[in-house]
């Protein structure tokens, strides 16, 4: 897939998170993968379609998910990854993908996004492509979020 399609997603991540009170995330890795992604604990899948079709996955550990949920809820302590914390992570994924969709429109590629599907568990696999997909690792003050992006050719 075209590497330039990854920038709208990275830009969304670095733009949206600071607006929610996070330090600016840093990109710490980018690879092209063939194998199924492996869940780190919490993985949110958001599909998109229209001028390009595909899926994006936000994959993180439960600790990172709790850190993000807590920051989004104005620092409220999050002991368990409960329904409220799950809603926060779903909402973040929705905002990130909606923002990425806006960035894609600027490239002339209009997309509509689905509702996020949040999955929780250890060690399960996530398949979003029959071909290669891009995997970007973003760091938010020591917490890693892996973004997997697959676009159908």
């Amino acid at each position, binding site marked *: 897939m075209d590497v330039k399609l990854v920038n709208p997603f990275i830009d969304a991540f670095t733009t949206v998170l600071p607006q929610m009170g996070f330090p600016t995330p840093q990109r710490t890795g980018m690879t092209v993968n063939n194998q199924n992604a492996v869940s780190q604990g919490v993985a949110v*899948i958001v599909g*998109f379609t229209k001028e390009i079709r595909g899926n994006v996955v936000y994959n993180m550990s439960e600790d990172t998910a709790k850190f993000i949920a807590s920051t989004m809820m104005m620092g409220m302590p999050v002991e368990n990854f409960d*329904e409220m914390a799950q809603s926060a992570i779903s909402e973040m994924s929705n905002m990130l993908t909606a923002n990425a969709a806006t960035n894609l429109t600027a490239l002339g590629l209009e997309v509509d996004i689905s*509702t996020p599907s949040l999955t*929780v568990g250890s060690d399960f696999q*996530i*398949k979003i492509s029959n071909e290669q997909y891009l995997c970007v690792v973003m760091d938010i003050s020591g917490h890693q979020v892996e973004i997997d992006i697959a676009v159908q050719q």
Partner: protein
Amino acid sequence: MEKVKVMVVDDSRISRMMVSSMLAKTNFEVCAMAENSAEAVALYAKTKPDVVTMDMNLPDADGIECTRRIHAIDPKAKIVMISAMKDAKLIMQGRMAGIGSFLQKPVSTNELIDTLMIMCNENVGAVAVYRESYVTTFAKVLQQSLVSIFGIQSEIEISQNEESVLHVDGVAAVIGIVGEPKGRVALYMDSETMYSLSKAMLGMDPQDDLSADEAEAAIEEAGNIITGRAVSRINDVFKDKEMRITPPGTVIGSDIILSNPELISFNVVAKTSYGNVFMNVGFARGV
């Protein structure tokens, strides 16, 4: 499955037929047709429709007067006016009489269905509208597709998902829905069912070898086909909906929780001789 009942009040037989034919493929059911105001009031009391379509010109009283008479027996009656004229004065008088919505003839199918859906949203609730208008179609398509793709019969059960999580042990193909309404479908089953079904799909014998990758791909494709068919059928009825689907994402493993606190969702279970096939259809709240 309980249908949403509609009473059609119109003095023209052609107009009554047009409205009923528009509703024929939907989960709205015309429970009564009246050609004048007196008949409308009598049939309303008898059939207790969920919603009424009301013509303005009736032989014995106008649609506004007829609305007043219906409201006298049921103050909560939901009435949509369908008339050739639609001006500010008529709308004001109609609103005062208790008409909830106004449409101008000729009415398009999508306008009519949308309006009735919105009116019924208040009356029977969003859950019933989702269930009647969308989920039953998904369930029918699932049952038909199990025959056409895998060659198996099934018994179908639909229930509203009261928990906000689904437990997946095996494989789940997740397909997003964009457009109006937004949502997602998850088709999931245990590994044993996955292998049996995918072998049936590929015309293989039960003892043949099939790799996990291929079996997962088969279920993913089945999810894609079933969701695509259901969405096409819904688009065919609700012409302005333009729902589309995103490519499937598949999760594979044990003890996976699929959480959707933001969705109103329904469980469709197809019981087959190969095991249970689960489909959860969820829509974003607040459409």
